[in-house]
């Protein structure tokens, strides 16, 4: 491989990482909020797909992609609220409900999304950061950043600060680490978890809007293939830390961009293998991080996964 080809791949991977990582980042941040409260919502894959469909439909009908983002967030929040409300009932298993919500969300999205596969909806604009900082032309395309990417980073920094320094952050962490302790402090445990799951759903819905309105930027039934699920796994890898979620999301984005980047310089063999790269990477990361003592130290004590 020549130097220029290598540079092309690297630039494509950086650009790809920024583009591909945003949905991972949003879902992972949402799941971090939910898991910090002591529940796990595996249904975010369904939320992501339904969010993508709603965003595309809203953008197509109203002509405003930002309304689409809002609509996707609200639908995601509704699904999250349903999950959060149902899990407070005795004998209801949050992991199983997550699987059910995944199939329900995907089903609804495919059902209502059929008429929107053909038409083109207005897409989200991008911010040409590359032009502003005077980057070389080859880098400019890679640095066309979607505003949602920046919003995601801002949310991550805010959450990182808020978990540690605000009263709400303390309430959330207490609920997640020990429900009896939280009850003793007078915290309404079920209500906090309901809010946390709803917030997680909102962010996952926004992640879906990014998929359908920016990159890849269209609605079809194969739009999301496991990003929502991988993001849930990514939260474990990031050890429930919002800033590490961003880094992990970028890593996953780069892995996801590997296939298309190699294709851009003419390496097409093994395309399907590179498509599997993010899944394999997720699995390897889970193997590497799940059993470690350090991960176990950071896990919220109430999480059913850790018991």
């Amino acid at each position, binding site marked *: 491989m020549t130097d220029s080809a290598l540079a092309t791949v690297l630039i494509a991977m950086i650009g790809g990482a920024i583009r591909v990582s945003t949905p991972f980042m949003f879902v992972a941040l949402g799941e971090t909020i939910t898991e910090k409260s002591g529940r796990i919502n*595996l249904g975010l894959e369904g939320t992501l797909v339904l969010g993508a469909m709603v965003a595309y439909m809203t953008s197509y009908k109203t002509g405003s992609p930002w309304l689409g983002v809002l609509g996707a967030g609200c639908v995601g929040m509704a699904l999250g609220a*349903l999950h959060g409300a*149902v899990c407070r*009932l*005795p*004998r*209801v*298993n949050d*992991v*199983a*409900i997550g*699987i*059910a*919500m995944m*199939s*329900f*969300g*995907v*089903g*609804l999205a*495919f*059902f209502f999304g*059929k008429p929107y596969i053909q038409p083109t909806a207005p897409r989200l604009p991008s911010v040409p950061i590359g032009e502003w900082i005077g980057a070389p032309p080859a880098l400019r395309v890679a640095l066309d950043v979607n505003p949602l990417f920046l919003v995601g980073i801002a949310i991550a920094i805010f959450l990182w600060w808020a978990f540690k320094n605000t009263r709400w952050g303390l309430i959330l962490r207490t609920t997640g680490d020990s429900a009896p302790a939280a009850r003793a402090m007078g915290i309404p445990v079920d209500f906090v978890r309901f809010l946390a799951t709803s917030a997680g759903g909102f962010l996952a819905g926004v992640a879906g809007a990014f998929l359908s309105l920016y990159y890849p930027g269209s609605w079809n039934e194969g739009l999301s*293939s*496991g990003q929502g*699920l*991988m993001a*849930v*796994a990514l939260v*474990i890898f990031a050890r429930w830390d919002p800033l590490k979620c961003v880094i992990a999301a970028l890593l996953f984005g780069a892995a996801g961009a590997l296939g298309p980047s190699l294709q851009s310089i003419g390496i097409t*063999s*093994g395309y*399907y*293998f590179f*498509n*599997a790269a993010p*899944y*394999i990477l*997720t*699995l390897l990361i*889970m*193997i590497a991080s*799940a*059993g470690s003592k350090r991960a176990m130290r950071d896990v919220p004590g109430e999480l059913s*996964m850790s018991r």
Partner: protein
Amino acid sequence: MQKSTTADTSPSAPIETVEFASDLGIRLRRSAEYVAVPLFALVTSGALFAVFLALIGKPPADFYSLLWRGGFGTAFSLQNTLQRAAPLILTALAMAIPARIGLIMIGGEGALVLSGFSAAAVALPLIGVAPKFVLLPVMAAAAIVVGALWVGLAGYLRHARGVNETISSLLLTYIAIAIMNFFVEGALRDPGSANKPSTFPIGDANMIGTIPGTDVHWGLAAGIVLCIALHFLMSRTTFGFAARITGGNPRAALAQGLPVGKLIVACSMIAGACAGVAGFFEIAAIHGRANASLAAGYGFTGILVAFLARHNPIAIIPVAIMFGGIAAAGGLIQRRMGLPDASVLVLQGLIFVVLLISETLYGRFAIFSGERSTSRT
């Protein structure tokens, strides 16, 4: 509880018989509860789906009558239903057996796809060389071994590294589909399959036949036999007992000296083998070659079937037939009512959610428990 108090006061024979009778009564009531609650969930979700249909302006009555006609109403549709029930029975077993040991293993789809592909792949060098009675067992063996290893891997990772088996098994599903696509679109592609990349067909002569007198392939019989065998294994053997204890309380099982790790891996491998049998029959009886049609979602519907059957292998059979019927009627409903094919997905998702919510109803009704106080645990 009641038994011990009476045994303390007067252990005489007549009272013991009365005790036994009321014990049986309670057991019957409990079993009735296990049927009544899922039925309630089915009826409720059916009603909710009717409301959903009415809201989008489609007559619910038409939907359900078409569902009956397309799934069960005629001999043809019934056979179509049973044909689809076969992989559902097997993939539901792939969910139910690990569930008995406390794992939520949802990798049935991946194991089905990869083992089906393996069956088609090992057949390639043997087509035209080996006779049918050699070819089919080799394919079946390959499918079962690959399926068992695939889900067994998720079980092993769970035990050895504490990797969440729900996430890892679903990731393995995506990886399995990618592996199949990699070979089907590359090295093992039949150049003749232009629109839908496939492996070379195993040939009509090598296809497994149907159960005499029907159009239903032998996968249904294999599924029913496996259900009965696994029910026996899980409820009447030391292995099953140990597995159920581990599912109830892993720490207690460890303290008892049970080989928890081996049990977890064994249950996962049984699950994978069941999905592998499903994959084998999809190739040897339906498609004849490996392509994207293998990933038809049977593995995912199987999860729902297992939950509705409360992970009981015998109960899986009727539930799988019901969902086979829903799948079989999908095409008819799509054509007649102009509904998208995803309406079946919506109905299934709705049933799934309502079913899991109704888990909370267990032990809330006095008629099922006989006595109120012991019921809520």
